[in-house]
């Protein structure tokens, strides 16, 4: 269960001024549920995702974020990951010279170590990774390539979903994982998420478009505008937004 209470976060701009981006977020995602966050560009969706995973570029000035009873904000990013949090980046980062297989196995074993589980050897890992790759209909050479280097936009997003599948988080935050995907890739990504659904998994699916939510049907939909959740509802809210646009909601906020 993720519980966010009155979360405020700021960034410091080039002139050293502090700008408040998150202006009091309240949100709870119970175990086993998938919630969608929608909202206009610049609303603070990616900021929320990064604040939850501990990017120190943002300063949390008030509020709390608790996962399964532990205070996320008190932990280093790697501890949050070990606690079960996973962020699929809107813009996955390229790591020149770092092999994808080495990266994935290092991540998996770092988390296992943190949880006092035995490490997975190279052979076992390859077996796991190959199965996951097959499930996501990804080319096998994805493992041999350097992390995200020379990947197309869609391949980068699928590589995020591959990581999620291997790391099996308690809570996944997917930041516009659908953008830049064609319909087939979108379906594969959605299946990747749906396959993890169960009582031990919950997700925050950030998206700009209702389209993804046809494949990952959310339990709740929240609208984030100007740093606050301004509206929440069932899956029908996404469809309503698609028709009416965000303007009406922003005015209402």
């Amino acid at each position, binding site marked *: 269960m993720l519980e966010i209470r009155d979360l405020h976060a700021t960034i410091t701009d080039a002139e050293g001024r502090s700008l408040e981006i998150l202006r009091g977020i309240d949100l709870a995602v119970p175990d086993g549920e998938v919630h969608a966050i929608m909202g206009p560009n610049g609303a603070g969706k990616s900021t929320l995702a990064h604040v939850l995973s501990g990017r120190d570029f943002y300063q949390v000035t008030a509020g709390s974020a608790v996962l399964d009873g532990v205070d996320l904000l008190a932990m280093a990013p790697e501890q949050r990951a070990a606690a079960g949090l996973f962020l699929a980046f809107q813009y996955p980062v390229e790591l020149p*010279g770092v092999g994808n297989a080495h990266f994935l196995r290092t991540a998996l074993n*770092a*988390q296992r170590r943190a949880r006092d589980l035995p490490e997975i050897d190279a052979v076992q890992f390859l077996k796991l990774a190959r199965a996951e790759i097959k499930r996501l209909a990804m080319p096998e050479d994805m493992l041999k390539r350097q992390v995200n280097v020379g990947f197309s936009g869609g391949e980068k997003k699928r590589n995020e979903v591959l990581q999620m599948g291997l790391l099996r988080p308690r809570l996944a935050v997917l930041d516009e994982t659908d953008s830049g995907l064609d319909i087939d890739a979108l379906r594969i990504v959605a299946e990747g998420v749906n396959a993890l659904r169960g009582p031990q998994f919950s997700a925050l699916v950030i998206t700009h478009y209702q389209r993804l939510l046809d494949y990952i049907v959310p339990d709740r939909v929240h609208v984030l505008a100007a740093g606050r959740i301004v509206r929440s509802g069932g899956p029908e809210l996404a469809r309503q937004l698609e028709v009416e646009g965000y303007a009406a909601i922003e005015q209402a906020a």
Partner: protein
Amino acid sequence: MVAASGTGFALPPAASAAARAAAAHFQRLGLPTPRAEAWKYTNLRGLGAVDFAPAAPSSAPLPDLPVLASLPGLPRLVFVNGHHRPDLSNVAPGPAGPGAPALARPERDAFAALNTMFATPSPIVVPPGHDAGTVLRLSLTLAGSDPIAAHPRQSLTLGAGARLTLLDVSAGTGAYLHNEVLEIALGAGAHLTHLRLQEGSAAAFAITTLYADLAEGAGYDALSFTLGAALSRTEAHVALSGAKARFTFDAAQALTAHQHGDITTVLAHDAPQGRSRQTIRNVLAQSARGVFQGRIDVARAAQKTDGYQMNHALLLSANAEIDSKPELRINADDVKCSHGATVGELDADQIFYLRSRGIPEPEARAMLIRGFLAEPLAAIAEAPIRAVFDDALARALTGLTA
């Protein structure tokens, strides 16, 4: 000019005429000082202060070297303290004599003069059209309690169309000067892949002066990793004398504490349609200092030369320093030549990406540093050889991130 004070630099008793001539050059040149333009950033005061004894032939057994364990099957040529060790080698250098290239410039370069005073030539000749596969050259300097100076000298002659991959490893223990000279002559259409790994001891001075001459259509691909030594300098003089010769140079140095690493290249594009690609990668921790000086001379005749030179530096501490000095002298009009340099710290987005996957920060940093250095290793086709460099990088990284 400061003349070398140590007895180590006195001419050996049974010196040849060439050695005596070289001694005269060295006497005149002395150890270079920062007043010489080519040595502006590398100060040899520390080296000049050490009294090096000439390295005697050693019959010591080989130390446990990972490179020997991982590549047991390779033909190998082993030198200890600059002397060939037939008992440890299964390849013998060819006979000295005419035919070996005389590319070194002892009258101009002090370290080549010093090398010529002491060195025994060790020629390798690959006949025209022959593919000699991969050969390991291992040059070890094993100092006891006193500092020693070793002066290995290697010449490589590849006949027209010949091919060779040379895995060139130097390492050592204790305090020493490893002053090597490499002379490389590539015939028309010949190809040399030169994979160098320098892992000198923490108290070593490692100076390599390399001279290469490329005939028409010859290709020289050099990878050069400097991971050790208190002070190192790789100085490469490469002449693309035949048309359509190609040279690539991927050099990397990972330095920490007070290590000083200097990579200096002087390229002579003397003929048309030559192509050169130089990429230097420096990782500098603590108070380490890296130097790259890259000179490219393009002669009037060398039309359609395509030259590229890039120096990347990753500075891991505020006390680390990089000096970068490109120098293009272009005398032809239809030429493409570019150079550049980047200096920076590790990328915060990359560190965060790794940490968000559960990888602790020190490990994340080490992965990124390794990635930065390892990029050129992907081009090594043979997995066991790549592993030699991977292992060496892993050892260097423990030093860098300590």
